[in-house]
């Protein structure tokens, strides 16, 4: 299955300039246009190149460990009132769906003859994945990370350094993910000849949103077939958490054409959208331009980006990929916020019922599913089948979760 991860796409595509309806496109300095065009060309060529597809497929299988399992979570299902099938991206190498994107872009980097990759990271997951691929492909690797994040994610900083990457703490602006992304863009403008900017989600200027989606869409292709094999039919709903949007698009894409399958993206509601302390760009933001694309953005009345808040570092971003903005506009997918507390309750429920510690990001998808199940059951008049993208594992979150639940032994 994974050997076909780049088979021609049946689902919706942006126009040739990367517009998804009124969203997407390129809002970048002219200096970057040549590099984006080069990347666009390399990606389009790769998509139809048998040798690229074979190489990518082999890496996904032999290195990343995909196809990931579709696991029927029976004890969790019983608590939730739905037949819940977990797409186990947490079992991939490096612990999340992100490895798929990173391997695809690292292969492209080699093809373009570039020798250096740069990345932005919030919690450090994408940074670790990029450092991993850079080690595997013998590329120089520089990761930009907000200083606030380098301090609260010290272990991931060490992990990246073990893998040979240089981690640069970003000390300007709000010192978080959005500022790390700004700094990576500045590096890219200055070093674009030998450098590829390996963006970690389905956001940024064209071709990143469509390209990243294509590299992670194996999640949905696999899950759709696995669900057919396991249940004899398609699910009633597919759910995922939405930060920048890569894991959600990865699992949605294969189902977009299946009209009966409802698609749900769960955004980080933080303390609650009404409090203003959240990261729900679609539910609580408005259309604007950020980091090279037109999409939903958390912004003030003057278009200044607002700081986002979430217990989940991977969802703590004030924008979202433009394809989600478009799926929201067209009504094909539904986007709802999940608060920190709701996510942590679902986190605990999965730990206790299934012996699986999810990433806090993925716990947002679980919490959304818990809320969705009874509504869907009432609407359908039967137990619904729901495929949940378990985008990552919770090892990285043990400290945050331990703190949240108050179960860390006090430091002496």
């Amino acid at each position, binding site marked *: 299955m994974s050997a076909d991860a780049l088979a021609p796409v049946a689902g919706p595509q942006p126009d040739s300039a990367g517009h998804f309806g009124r969203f997407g496109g390129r809002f970048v300095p*002219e200096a970057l*246009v040549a590099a984006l065009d080069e990347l666009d060309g390399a990606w389009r060529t790769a998509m139809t190149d048998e040798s690229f597809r074979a190489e990518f497929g082999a890496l996904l299988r032999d290195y990343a460990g995909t196809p990931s399992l579709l696991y029927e979570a029976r004890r969790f299902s019983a608590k939730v009132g739905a037949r819940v099938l977990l797409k186990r991206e947490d079992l991939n190498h490096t612990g999340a769906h992100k490895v798929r994107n990173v391997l695809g872009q690292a292969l492209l980097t080699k093809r373009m003859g570039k020798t250096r990759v740069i990345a932005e990271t919030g919690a450090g997951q994408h940074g670790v994945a990029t450092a991993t691929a850079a080690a595997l492909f013998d590329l120089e690797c520089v990761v930009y990370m907000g200083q606030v994040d380098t301090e609260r994610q010290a272990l991931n900083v060490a992990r990246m350094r073990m893998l040979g990457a240089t981690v640069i703490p970003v000390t300007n602006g709000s010192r978080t993910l959005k500022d790390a992304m700004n700094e990576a863009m500045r590096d890219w*403008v200055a070093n674009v000849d030998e450098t590829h900017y390996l963006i970690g989600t389905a956001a940024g200027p064209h071709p990143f949103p469509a390209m990243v989606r294509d590299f992670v869409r194996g999640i949905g292709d696999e899950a759709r077939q696995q669900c057919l094999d396991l249940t004899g039919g398609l699910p009633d709903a597919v759910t995922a958490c939405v930060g920048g949007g890569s894991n959600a698009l990865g699992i949605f894409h294969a189902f977009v054409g299946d009209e009966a399958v409802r698609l749900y993206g769960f955004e980080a509601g933080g303390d609650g959208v009404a409090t203003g302390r959240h990261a729900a760009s679609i539910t609580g933001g408005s259309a604007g331009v950020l980091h090279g694309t037109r999409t939903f953005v958390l912004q003030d009345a*003057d*278009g200044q*980006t607002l700081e986002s808040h979430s217990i989940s570092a991977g969802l703590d971003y004030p924008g979202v990929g433009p394809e989600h903005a478009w799926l929201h506009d067209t009504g094909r997918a539904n986007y709802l916020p999940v608060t920190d507390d709701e996510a942590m309750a679902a986190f605990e429920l999965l730990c206790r019922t299934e012996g699986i510690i999810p990433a806090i990001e993925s716990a947002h998808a679980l919490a959304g599913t818990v809320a969705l199940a009874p509504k869907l059951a009432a609407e359908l008049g039967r137990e619904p089948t729901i495929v949940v993208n378990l985008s990552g594992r919770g090892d990285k979150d043990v400290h945050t979760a331990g703190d949240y639940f108050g179960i860390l032994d006090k430091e002496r």
Partner: protein
Amino acid sequence: MSRIGVAFDKARADGRALLVGCMPAGFPTVEGSIAAMTAMVEAGVDVIEVEIPYSDPVMDGPVIQRASDIALAGGVRTADTMRIIEAVAATGAPVVTMTYWNPVERYGVDVFARDLASAGGTGLITPDLIPDEADEWLAASDAHGLDRTFLVSPSSTDARLAMTVQHCRGFVYATAVMGVTGARARTSDAAPTLVSRARAVTDLPIGVGLGVGTGAQAGTVAGYADGVIVGSALVRCVLDAPTEADGLAALRTLSAELAEGVRNPTR
């Protein structure tokens, strides 16, 4: 012809380049930025480029980032920028505005163009808006008689260069280096080539920016370009000064040095 065009023509007739000096609106305060820009004009800067502070300025280096952060922390609003433009335009110097795209889109593109024109602004420099995405701005700038300055870069292909200058009005901004704003020890080798490539496809005046910080560098750039654009070095005068008066004095000194530079082109 636009007011900027007239200013460029006059400088060309005098055998010199035009000096464009950039300052973020509201830095260090609204009144302070008006005082700074006025001092620049008095000391010989021909055209003032007012930058609208933005939370995520990806084309700017550390100096302008810091100045923008200070302006935003002080609470400057887009509406204040209009007031600043009006005050500086009253000095008689043409005022061009540089802005990232989201603040304009949020204000409303046509309303922004209308207010900018009535404040006396000549047009916009748009560092993250390329003509490919600019339909709304093309229409609004036509409707309100504003200039459009898009950027060209050493990495622009011939086809993009031709397309981009075709959409410009007033002047073209050539980014001298592959990089962000910030004064550099050496001016760029790529810039003269870029300017001559642009000249092959347009009669519009060409301003060169990114990296110019001294009178000597201004003279070098004046040797091949129609305009010399200076930002970070001027901003730093205010940023590094212990008091506002010291900042203004440093600004006057550097402005005068740069004005001397553009009058002594090195060829």
